[in-house]
Every structure is written in C-alpha cells, then in structure tokens.
C-alpha cells in the first residue's frame, strides 16, 4: 500500500479482562481516502474505533496520526477530549449520541465549542458582548447552516434533535462531527437502519466530504452496497484479527472473507457477495 497515510495502526491489542477483543491488528488509512473496516458482529470494529478516539486505552500497540503539515501524534497517549481537540479526529457512534434536548443548530454549535471558546475570550469577552465574539458566533452559525444544507436538514434547524427520524439523526450526527473540522472522520455504521434511498444519499454525502473537503474517512459499515461503492480500501476483521485487506474487488473475491461472513451470518454473507456487483 503506497501513498500518504493519515492514520497507521500498528499491532494494536485490546483486552477486557480475559476477553481479547482486538489482537495484533495493523492497518493504515490513506489521506483523503475512504477506508472501510468491515467484519461480522463482535469482530472488534467498534473497539478499534474506541481505541483510536481515546475512549479505550489500548492494551498494546501504537496508533499514529500524521497531519498534513508533517506532525505526528501518538493517539494512544492522548486521552479522551484531546484526540478530538488536538489530533482533529471526529467520530460518530453506533448507537447515535446526539444532544436530544437541543435543536439541530445547537448540536452543531456545541461541536464548534473550542473555536468559540477562544473567540469568547474564555467567556469573559462573550459576557460583555465583544464584537469579536459576535463575529465568531455568526461565522459558527454560517458553518452550521452550511452543514445543515449539506445533510438536507436546513428546514429542521430549530427542531429538537430528539424529535428527528432515525435517518435524519444519523445525518445530523455526521454534520456535527464535521463541524469540528476534523482531519479524520470515523463513522461507526452510519448506514445502519437507513432505507435504500437514504443509504444512497449517505454514499453521496461521504463522497462529497472526501472529494470536496479532502477529509479522510474511516468507516465501519455493514451495508455492503455502501462499502463496496465508496471505499478506496477495505480492512476485514474477524474475532479481533485482520483476515484480509485490499480494494473492494479484491476483498469481495477473497475466500477467507466469504467464509468469515458465512460462518457468522448467511444474510450478511449474501450481502457481501451481492454488494457492488
């Protein structure tokens, strides 16, 4: 695998007591590309995400993030909020975590917390209504509006996020992650629970994020039509280890992958083989 790597995971291991969730996992994600992480349920994909985004401290291994400027950050040494703040890694959750009692717009404003905090002079300038803060707030609202437009939720900007339909919540969560202006966007099953039309719209959204904004994407997904269509590179996991990787075509034809899915769930295996063909 050649090219400019934004993320390289080296011999990552994660154990919970006796359970080995991830073992000796190495892979890399290229800059401005979509890398997919697939595998049957319980393969350890979400655990990998939690290690990358600092919610779990890995039992072993290294996770390196290299920014455009050349600086490299050891993610396994940063903890929770700093990974989002300093390393510019944003994520969504498998079971959506919006702020349900806040409006869509407010959700996207919270995502811009760190930039707004600086502009508000850590609250003091904001409290006296300094023009510098008011400008920054206006720009933040513009960015949020822009994202609401992109995910097609502009007309619902002032509605509580908790009232949104499932598919809308998924898209809003992606918009919220993007409002942190990340270098790497990690999406945990963004197409779960979406219908075919919504899945297609999601694929388009992710492609536009990659192509127009140049954001690198790491994607966990079960919906093979999405994975096969948009991924540049696919890493397949089973039982905590990597069993295959390559382009969508290579992965689709790999007997080990088919076996893993067949062993796990016939429907999923069928989906792998149908997807993208």
């Amino acid at each position, binding site marked *: 695998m050649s090219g400019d790597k934004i993320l390289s995971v080296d011999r990552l291991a994660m154990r919970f007591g006796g359970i080995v969730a991830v073992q000796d996992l190495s892979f890399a994600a290229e800059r401005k590309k979509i890398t997919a992480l697939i595998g049957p349920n319980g393969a350890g994909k979400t655990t990998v995400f939690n290690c990358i985004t600092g919610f779990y401290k890995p039992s072993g291994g290294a996770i390196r993030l290299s920014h455009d400027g050349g600086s490299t950050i050891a993610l396994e040494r940063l903890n929770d*909020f700093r990974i989002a703040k300093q390393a510019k890694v944003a994520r969504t959750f498998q079971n959506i975590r919006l702020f349900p009692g806040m409006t869509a717009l407010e959700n996207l404003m919270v995502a811009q917390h760190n930039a707004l905090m600086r502009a508000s002079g850590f*609250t003091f300038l904001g409290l006296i209504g300094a023009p510098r803060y008011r400008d920054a707030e206006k720009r933040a609202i513009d960015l949020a509006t822009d994202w609401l437009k992109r995910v097609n939720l502009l007309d619902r900007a002032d509605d509580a996020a908790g009232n949104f339909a499932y598919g809308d919540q998924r898209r809003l969560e992606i918009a919220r992650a993007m409002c942190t202006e990340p270098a790497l966007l990690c999406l945990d099953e963004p197409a779960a629970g979406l219908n075919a039309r919504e899945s297609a719209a999601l694929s388009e959204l992710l492609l536009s994020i990659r192509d127009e904004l140049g954001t690198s994407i790491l994607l966990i997904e079960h919906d093979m039509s999405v994975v096969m269509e948009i991924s540049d590179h696919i890493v397949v996991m089973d039982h905590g280890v990597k069993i295959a990787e390559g382009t969508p075509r290579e992965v689709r034809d790999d007997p080990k992958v088919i076996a893993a899915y067949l062993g796990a769930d016939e429907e999923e295996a069928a989906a792998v083989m149908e997807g993208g063909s």
Partner: protein
Amino acid sequence: MKAGPGIPSILKTAFVNALIALVLFSLMVGIRTEAGASGQLTYWTRFGELVSLVAAVFGGSIVLELLRQWIGPTGAEKLVPPAVKSGMSFIGRYVAAALLIFTLLVPVIFYNQRYILDLAILVLTYVMLGWGLNVVVGLAGLLDLGYVAFYAVGAYSYGLLATNFGWSFWVCLPLAGILAAFWGVLLGFPVLRLRGDYLAIVTLAFGEIIRLVIINWQELTGGPNGVSGIPRPSFFGIPLDNSDDGLAAKLGIEYSPTHRIVFLFYLILALALLTNWATIRLRRLPIGRAWEALREDEVACRALGINTTTTKLTAFATGAMFGGFAGAFFATRQGFISPESFTFQESALVLAIVVLGGMGSQLGVALSALAMIGGFELFRSLETYRMLVFGMAMVLIMIWRPRGLIGHRAPTVYLTKANAISSDLVKEGHG
C-alpha cells in the same frame, strides 16, 4: 380512564410501602424509650399508633397510585392541546414581565407592612439561591446536595472580613463570591469522576463538612456561637441609620427603620437579577451550551473535543459564586450568622425549588421559590400540620407536572424561530 397498572400492582406497591413504614416506625414510634426517674431506661410500646401510621401509609399509597393514573404522569402535557400550549408560552413572557414590575413595586405597595417586606426579602433570597443552583443542576445536570456550603462560605467570608478588618460590604461582596467559587472548584475536583447518586452523596458530605468545620474552628468562626455584630450595608458608604450623616438626614427626610428594609429589598433584587442576567447570558455563550450538552450526553461532548473536567468545574464555580453572593447578603441582613443557618435542610429546600420550578427554567425557579417560601408562610396557621400539608402539596404538584412547573426548554440560538423544546426530550443529566 387511561390504562394504568392494575389493582394487584397498586396493592403490591401499597403493601411494600406499608412494610417499609412498619420497619421504620416500629423503632421510631412503636417503642418509646425514656430515661426514668433514677436514670434507668424505661420503655413502653405504642402499637396503636404504629398500626394507624402503617395503615395511613398503606391507604395513602393506594390514593397516590390512583391519582397518578388519573392526572399523571404527564397528564397535563397530554391534555393541553398544542395551540393552548403555545399560547401559554406567549403568556409566560408577559408573566415574567408582570412579575418583575410587581416585584419592583412591592416596597411601595407594602411600605407599611414590615412582615410582607421581610417575607419578600426571604423569597428573593431563595430565588437567587435557586437561580444559582440552577446553573449546576438545571443546566449542567450535576446533582448538588451541598449547595448550602457555598451560601455558608459567602456568609462567613463577609461576616469575618467585616468584623475583623472592618471591610465594607461592597468590597466583601465580590470577595465572598470569589471565595465561594474557589470552594466550588475545590469540591469539583474530587467529584468530577463521580456520577449520579455518588455525586449527590459526596456533595451532601461536602455541605456537612463545611458546617462541621465552621462549628469546630472556634478561634476563627466562633463555633456554635456564630459571628455577631456584622455591619449592616451602607448606601455606598452612607449609613442607613438615625445618625447625623445617615442617608435620611442627608436627604432631609425623617428617619424610619423601614428605609433599611427597603434598601435590603432592592439589594437582593439587584443581586438576584444579576444572577438571572448572567445565567441567561452564559447559556447563550459556548460555555453555557457546553453545560447543557454535558447534561445531555457527556460521552458525545468528549468526542467533540470538549474538556468535560473544566466544563464541570466552571459550572460548579459559577453556581457557587452566586451562592456566595447570596450568603454575603444573608450575613448583612441578619447581622448575625451561626452554623444553624446552614444545615442540609437549606440545600434540600433550594434543590426542591429548582426541581419544582422545572430544571433549567428561570421563570419556573422564581415561581416555585415564591410558592415554596410564600406557601410555607401561608400554612403557618396550620401549625403542626404545616409540614404535612406542604409535603402533600408538593407531591401533588410533582404528580401533576413531573418535569416541574415550567416544562420547556428555550433554544439558545435559532435560525428562523425559537421553538420551545418539550421537557420530555431534555435529559436530566446528574453525572
């Protein structure tokens, strides 16, 4: 009638409650112990009273469950059509304005009724405390059962600085706030990792610790005797007394003790409004939005790069600061403070005000402080039964409106229209 739990489940609840009552009351009421004439222990049983109490709990539980089915849990929310609801929020805005104008006029209307003026000052003190605690509990969703500690820190800061160094109220007021905020941060550090019940227990302990320190640190605080002779506030340096350079003499009007009461009234009103203004303002700043986001989902906050530690600390410190201001006011109004004024009961009362008002709602907190403190005075004629009637009233209100009097959240920013958000969606946090 709505389908609720059936009769067997109601009976079961009532039975369990009666059992708990039996266990509790058998020692407290069932057996009465006293020291006899020669110091020996004498005791006798009161099974009649015990049986009637347990029966009352049993019957009361059944009535409560039935009430819950008839008018709760969100009965009011469901019965009120949306049009009426939006109308009510429209009225709500006018209620706030009308209430403010009325409050401003209270000293004029009730100039000769000292009792009402005193009561109004008391209500306003609790409005301020409620608004202060609302930052911690209502916005940041951190359940703080030791809020009275900051009230005490504020009161003792002013009391001690004024009596020992002769510093004026206007110098001590910000100091009291800063010191209370400092203690808020100190409390914040150890409890940050705790959630829910654990947080509540540790804050409760903190409130007690502060009170015990005050009782035991005799040289500084005077222990149980408290601090007396705390100077009354001056009108920016001009004393409000009967002397020749008092305000009355300077203005050339006849002195009356009511002047000081009226001044105190406007002082606490100004402090409370400052709290309100700052809270409304902070809510619309990134820090306030982060508090509310923390209440909604702490994990999501961390994924967005929000430092949850400092965010919680600022909430604690801000709430504590307002508590400190209120404490300084309390000290100057009373002229005397002692640990007795800062018991857990105060924390519980302020928390009840916040919960009853609707967590996060400024108007709700003001209304519930009025209802709780004013209502408590209304029931004074009931004497012994006052607490009972009061408790029942609170239970009824919480059945009728489980989310508090004002159950809506107003968005902090909007594109086209500020839609009120139903409290069913808003999380309560507590961690």
